[in-house]
């Protein structure tokens, strides 16, 4: 392929934060922009969509796709970019694992719609209208994309070559990844372009763990004034550090908040939530039934803690539907 390598940066069901990060690599971005030919980057510059379609298959060297897949648009764009790209990089937690919005997999589409367009306190909806994928207004045909029943991670709808987790991925890893592509120094396909180990490996508080880490009580972050230099688990505050890939730069730890897992599972682990359950159970200091119930009882919203960013790629993916919705 002649000329500079073509690069596409694109969002699907994302929040734009990932694109902001790319903008955040300020000066570096200029160098990159010199080195590559950005054929698509909605948040920062104009481009013509049909130009992408006009490209030869595989003509794009790299597509960095952020956001999850929630509707037909997302999937079509994802598939198009897959077709046109040699490499697809799942960029950010949403693309890699579904992200926070993946928690919507605990709800049905009906439930979502019912609240948003009917039950919410400020809704004024005398005709009981709901958005329609096709509707004709005064004879004019108006179309909306098809809204899927659940949230998908990128690799659940197209093949993904590399993963760069984080919410958003930190600039330094973005730069690393881009350089790796430009210099053709990429690890085997399917790799995650971040360190292999768990957050504890780089967390400054890890040293403060006592010889035997035992959780007698579970505290919620608003209930305690967390010691700024002690392991959160030691303080009984749930921290997903042990089960979460490092590389984020401990940004949350640094402002004295525990890890919620935006970097997803460590190398070789599929469902970090499940793994954390096993780990947590081991360090819960509770032998009799009462203590277990007490501790587990304190773990309000276990699934929200353990799968904050990764529900769609968890082993069970989403809430079962063969049970009645509480509406």
């Amino acid at each position, binding site marked *: 392929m002649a000329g500079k390598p073509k690069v596409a940066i694109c969002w699907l069901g994302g929040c734009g934060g990932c694109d902001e990060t790319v903008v955040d690599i300020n000066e570096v971005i200029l160098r990159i922009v010199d080195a590559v030919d950005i054929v698509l980057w909605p948040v920062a510059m104009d481009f013509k969509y049909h130009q992408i379609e006009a490209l030869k298959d595989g003509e794009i060297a790299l597509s960095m796709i952020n956001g999850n897949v929630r509707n037909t648009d997302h999937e079509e764009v994802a598939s198009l970019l897959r077709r046109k790209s040699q490499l697809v990089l799942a960029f950010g937690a949403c693309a890699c694992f579904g992200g926070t919005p993946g928690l919507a997999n605990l709800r049905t589409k009906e439930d979502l719609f019912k609240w948003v367009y009917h039950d919410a306190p400020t809704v004024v909806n005398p005709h009981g209208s709901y958005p329609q994928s096709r509707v004709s207004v005064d004879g004019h045909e108006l179309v909306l994309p098809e809204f899927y029943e659940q949230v998908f991670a990128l690799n659940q*709808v197209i093949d993904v070559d590399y993963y760069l987790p984080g919410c958003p991925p930190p600039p330094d890893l973005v730069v690393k990844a881009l350089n790796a592509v430009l210099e053709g120094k990429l690890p085997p396909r399917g790799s995650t372009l971040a360190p292999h180990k768990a957050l504890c490996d780089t967390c400054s508080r890890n040293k403060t763990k006592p010889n035997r880490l035992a959780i007698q009580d579970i505290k919620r972050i608003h209930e305690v004034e967390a010691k700024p230099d002690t392991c959160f688990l030691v303080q009984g505050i749930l921290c997903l550090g042990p089960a979460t890939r490092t590389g984020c730069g401990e940004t949350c730890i640094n402002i004295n908040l525990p890890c919620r897992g935006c970097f997803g599972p460590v190398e070789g682990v599929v469902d970090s939530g499940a793994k954390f*359950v096993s780990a947590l*159970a081991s360090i819960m200091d509770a032998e009799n039934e009462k203590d277990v*119930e007490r501790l587990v009882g304190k773990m309000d919203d276990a699934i929200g803690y353990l799968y904050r960013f990764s529900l769609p790629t968890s082993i069970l*993916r989403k809430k079962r539907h063969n049970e009645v919705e509480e509406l």
Partner: protein
Amino acid sequence: MTHHEPKLVCFSCRFGWGYLTDEETLSRQIKNWVPVICSGKIDAIHILNAFKQGADGVLILGCPEGDCHYQDGNFEARKRVYLLQRILESYGIEKARLKIELSVDPEGKRIPQLVKEMSDVVKKLGPLTKTKDRTKTASAVQG
């Protein structure tokens, strides 16, 4: 779903259950039975995978309190089960579908019974469908 026979997976601790009966004989009586050296060796991953694979229930048989050959493996298992029950409920899987019993039965005669009892409970809850990796549904709902 009236005629469905629930599929149960049963893990049991070797030190507490059926060690006096030949394994072949028992596994003929108990479907999807996996004896393990210690109930504490059962990972949450295993249990979730069981449900993913379409199990309607998972039964864990550990040895009695204080009897664990490895000190507290049965307690570990119980803690995991209680935690998982919470998570399963969020997934829409009733907690009754995951059960742990800490007791002892060297001959293992009770295992088939316990499995039966649990399947009866699970049967009432209906079947769980296999988790498919890709399930699209119809377009925007009608109000």
